[in-house]
């Protein structure tokens, strides 16, 4: 039988705008423009600084997640990695009396290891990414709570706190990471391989792409990014906490999906994540300034993810937005 040519459905014109590249950027601008008059504090210097300091670690985690989502997977364990890296590093630097650089190195190593464990299970056993990372989220965050007996760790060395508290350092770290990842994705063979893996793993394998290694590497990178974010967040809060980042999961997934990184894999740019994160942070901030309670914020964000996932499904169905 002769294969039929793929049918290309045509979506109405108004969908084009909704599904365009800069959708989340437009949303952010709209959001700020609409709510700035009602929330006087929104554009104040203090508030902007506050927004910015949450934006940085969120961006770092989201960059890692973006890599995983390009391969067509998902990493739900990122927030647990943030927590466990925080307490392991914290206890090493306080109870273990280790200097800050060893603490940081250990935190990053913890992230790499958990990412590697996730990646190994997903590539070697062919298990669905969401169940592997869901279970490892539970295990890792459980470990963090058990390890500290649910207590925070204070009195971290000042050298360590510097990284999170000096805006210049944390901005530089985030910017460097973003540029490196952008470089890898756009300018190197690895980037092309990663997209091909997410687009069609079979074609990729036939064409000599190391599909398993790329998938594995994406989870390792995601673990590393989460640990890096943990360094900055722990420093900023001056305390290592076993529940650090627990509220972050919705924001991270929301930011990437609203930014336009496809849950079906193979599509996404660091720039899209860059547009998605500010929207989520601005949304969070506006809702807070409007004095909405935590649960209202959770409901809004959950609906946001659902809406973004719906847009993603529509885009895929109508064949829009090729990167």
């Amino acid at each position, binding site marked *: 039988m002769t294969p039929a040519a793929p049918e290309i459905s045509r979506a109405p014109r108004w969908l084009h705008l909704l599904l365009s590249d800069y959708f989340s950027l437009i949303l952010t601008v709209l959001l700020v423009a609409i709510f700035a008059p009602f929330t006087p504090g929104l554009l104040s210097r203090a508030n902007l600084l506050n927004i910015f300091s949450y934006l940085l670690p969120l961006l770092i985690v989201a960059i890692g997640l973006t890599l995983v989502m390009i391969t067509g997977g998902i990493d739900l364990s990122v927030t647990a990695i943030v927590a466990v890296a925080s307490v392991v590093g914290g206890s090493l630097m306080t109870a273990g009396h280790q200097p800050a650089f060893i603490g940081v190195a250990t935190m990053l190593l913890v992230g790499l290891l958990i990412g590697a464990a996730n990646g190994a299970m997903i590539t070697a056993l062919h298990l669905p990414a969401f169940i592997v990372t869901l279970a490892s989220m539970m295990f890792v965050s459980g470990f963090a709570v058990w390890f500290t007996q649910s207590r925070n760790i204070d009195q971290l060395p000042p050298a360590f706190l510097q990284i999170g508290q000096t805006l210049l350092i944390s901005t530089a770290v985030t910017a460097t990471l973003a540029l490196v990842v952008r470089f890898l994705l756009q300018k190197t063979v690895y980037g*092309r391989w990663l997209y091909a893996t997410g687009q069609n793993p079979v074609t990729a394998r036939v064409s000599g792409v190391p599909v398993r290694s790329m998938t594995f590497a994406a989870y390792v990178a995601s673990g590393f990014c989460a640990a890096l974010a943990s360094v900055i967040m722990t420093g900023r809060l001056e305390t290592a906490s076993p529940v650090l980042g627990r509220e972050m999961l919705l924001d991270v997934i929301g930011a990437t999906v609203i930014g336009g990184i496809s849950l079906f894999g193979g599509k996404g740019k660091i720039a899209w994540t860059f547009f998605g994160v500010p929207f989520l942070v601005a949304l969070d901030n506006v809702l807070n300034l409007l004095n909405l309670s935590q649960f209202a914020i959770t409901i809004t964000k959950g609906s946001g993810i659902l809406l973004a996932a719906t847009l993603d499904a529509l885009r895929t169905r109508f064949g829009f937005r090729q990167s």
Partner: protein
Amino acid sequence: MSAPFVEFVGIEKAFFGVPILRGISFDLPAGGALGLVGENGAGKSTLMNIFGGNLAPDRGHMRLAGREYTPATPRDAERNGVAFIHQELNLFPNLSIGENLFLTRFPSQRGTSLIDYSRLNELTVKLLEEVGLAALPGQSVETLSTGERQLVEIAKALSTDARVIIFDEPTTSLSRSETERLFALIARLRPRGIAFIYISHTLADVFQLCQQIVVLRDGAVVGDGPAHSFTESKLISLMVGREINRLFPERNPTSRLAEPLLQVRGLSCCGKLQDISLTIHRGEIVGLAGLMGAGRSELARSIFGLDPRTSGEVILNDRRLKPLNPRAAIRNGAAFLTENRGSEGLCLQLSVADNLSLACLPRHSRPVLKRLNFETLRAAVERIRAVVRVDSKASNEQPVRTLSGGNQQKIVLGKWLLNEPRVLLLDEPTRGIDVGAKSEIYRLILDLAAKGNGILLISSEIEELIGLCDRILVLSRGRIVREFARDQFHREEILRAALGSAAPA
């Protein structure tokens, strides 16, 4: 003979302007058994897809039991008593035999929606008896062999009161005794008025089973009559008697003394390939003929390291490949053009340029960090676009999904050529593409050979192999059964060897 029960009248069908069926007319009586034979691509499957409600004919009509028959869907065909038993059986292995038979119409206990299993078992036992399958109705289908599953499919057809049952190559995966059992069953069912259309390449089976034979060639009926009016050699000459394409240029056989590029020794692969050895020399085009399911694609895939092998070795460019995986094969100069263009050859959403460059990225990167050298890459992509002549209207950024089959195939080929391979494994390189693109791909293949590359060409069209190859190997049931040198090429002999029906003359 009684009045016709199934009638095909002037059926025509074209895909993308290429005619596949050119006015097919024949009929068969109730209780008749008709053998439908023809080479791959002669139009048998298309015709049966029309009969089974998967496709609509462009022109012509069908009659069933004297009434006009126009199935809109496969379900529609089923309701009209037409059952289609595919090569890929449509059973649910995780359900029992009885459940598979009555999936959409379970007998229910009176007044409840519970399945009446005793009634179901009763019905199933009766059907299993009819088809002669010694199995329990509650037995799960995954415990059955392929032959047994086929009997379950027939039982399913009987349970829907089928009046016409179509078999598509039913015996390729059956043992001899299972085949005999199937034939005995068909012989038992015919007196009930059930008509059979039997599609097969195994001519001996067709002669044993059918009283009437219809031969298709290039979408037209070239022979129709009672089975005893045909002989095996007459059938074969009818099947292959097609006009030789003038697409193939003259070809000078290469010297056998040229150095070997690819050597395969004793390759076996879990029941699909048995002890395959072959050598391809510099500048040589080796054809691989065989029926569907003979193991042609499996051989190419095993050589390229896509499918696991159980034993044997592959030597490429004097290097033994170990481990055998696509990356190692590519690194040692192999390329594999898959027959599944859309699912294995291309990333349909990605652009023309991205697809073309997918396999050659490492050679356009700088050592540190594998940075891409965009200038050389872009130049290479442009160069190869000109070589394989991708439609110049298509931009480099256009997703390949929007291109025609011929252009897509050129892109897959271009992807491999960018890697400057020494050995190309081409699996059905001209399937589903138009004549213009076909001849361009032939020209490319000959050019590649002239430049000293070795080529393994798999094709279902014997003309294509005869026109292009230096040697043709014939594969049957996972073994190489004959080898033909260019001066021995003989269409009927090749087909005969592929059919495995008679000893070589």
